[in-house]
């Protein structure tokens, strides 16, 4: 399993990355931790001609405050997010979710930006970020724009990022909300068969559609005073889970209800 040939470019600033993207267009891919991209390249399911390594851009790494948000640089590694005292204090949901990504070796290399930019619905972080209404900052040649989590995930392995943009950071709210992240796997080290994130009154689901989605019917039922078990029964409304070797779509629907109920109860208990 060997990647097809390519040219590797290490860039030192976002501007350099943007210049390289402009120069190479569709032939280029951004590389951060590489833990989504390099396996695809080894299978030759991705064959970029140019890899632009943004992991060394200092401004893309680390955790800072900005108003009532926590700003996570896109190239911040999962292990940093998982262990960061700041993230642990101000956004437990994010730290906990990061701790369930892959395995220790993957968390030492994989980055939050790489994970969300890959746009896999069975990934952990996108689900929690969606529940938190995280804001994604993208920079292009014409400046930066902010993309709401609800608009960020577009389709199977597709995000709202254009080929000429670099994801700069992800902003999550500092507000202390009750939270939970529930991940069902058959084996310990696995992608989520289904996952469910609860943050305040928001509920998001992973692996229940092409993209991570909000369980809007659950959220409105709760707002209308439904109890947790009743509301959780609506978790699979407007979902379109696939069937694969791990689970049928029916079973995924069931798991979504179970995980959502467990998540809501756990979140409530943390209140």
């Amino acid at each position, binding site marked *: 399993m060997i990647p097809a040939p*390519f040219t590797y470019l290490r860039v030192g600033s976002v501007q350099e990355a943007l210049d390289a993207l402009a120069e190479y267009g569709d032939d280029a891919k951004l590389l951060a931790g590489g833990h989504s991209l390099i396996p695809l390249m080894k299978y030759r399911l991705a064959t970029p001609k140019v890899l632009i390594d943004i992991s060394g851009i200092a401004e893309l790494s680390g955790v800072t405050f900005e108003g009532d948000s926590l700003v996570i640089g896109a190239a911040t590694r999962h292990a940093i997010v998982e262990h960061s005292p700041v993230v642990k204090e101000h956004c437990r949901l994010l730290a906990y979710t990061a701790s369930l990504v892959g395995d220790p070796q993957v968390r030492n290399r994989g980055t939050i930006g790489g994970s969300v930019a890959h746009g896999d619905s069975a990934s952990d972080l996108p689900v929690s970020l969606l529940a938190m209404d995280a804001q994604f900052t993208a920079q292009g040649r014409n400046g930066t724009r902010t993309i709401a989590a609800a608009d960020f995930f577009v389709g199977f392995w597709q995000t709202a990022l254009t080929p000429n943009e670099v994801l700069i950071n992800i902003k999550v709210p500092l507000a202390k909300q009750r939270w939970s992240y529930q991940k069902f796997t058959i084996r310990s080290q696995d992608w989520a068969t289904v996952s469910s994130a609860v943050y305040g009154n928001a509920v998001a689901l992973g692996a229940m559609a092409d993209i991570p989605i909000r369980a809007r019917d659950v959220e409105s039922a709760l707002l209308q005073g439904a109890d947790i078990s009743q509301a959780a029964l609506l978790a699979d409304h407007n979902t379109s889970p696939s069937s694969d070797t791990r689970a049928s779509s029916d079973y995924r629907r069931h798991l979504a209800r179970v995980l959502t109920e467990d998540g809501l109860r756990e979140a409530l208990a943390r209140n």
Partner: protein
Amino acid sequence: MTTRVNISINARRYEYEVEDRTLLVHFIREQARLTGTHIGCDSSNCGACTVLLDGQAVKSCTLLAVQADGQNVSTVEGLTGSFNGLSPIQEGFRQEHGLQCGYCTPGMLMACTALLAENAQPSESEIRHALEGNICRCTGYEMIVRSVQWAAAKQVQQ
């Protein structure tokens, strides 16, 4: 496209002109000729290729050599200690029969080394979860867990 890459492995510098697509594991095995680090899958699941990169456990089959340019890699060949030259974790695997065919072992040892550096007294559950990215097809894992516990106990004594 090729790039001149300079990587320190076990405190020795290795500088080679390699294709940009060269995987770190192949740089270690075929350029540096340190063949203790193995390859067991294509998908970052098995952990046989685990090495330490600037002290952190990583899967060297999912890194490019150019990404590690200028960094420090530790492999099984670099482990040393006071047990006849073996480190506590190596000796733990010997004492508790934590290996059979030995193919996954170097990756296991490096994952365990990283674990014990971070958490000198891991619980059984912490050991098992720290090793969830390493597959062994021979031992059924219990003896690997015991091996880590042996090493943890010895590290405390020392």
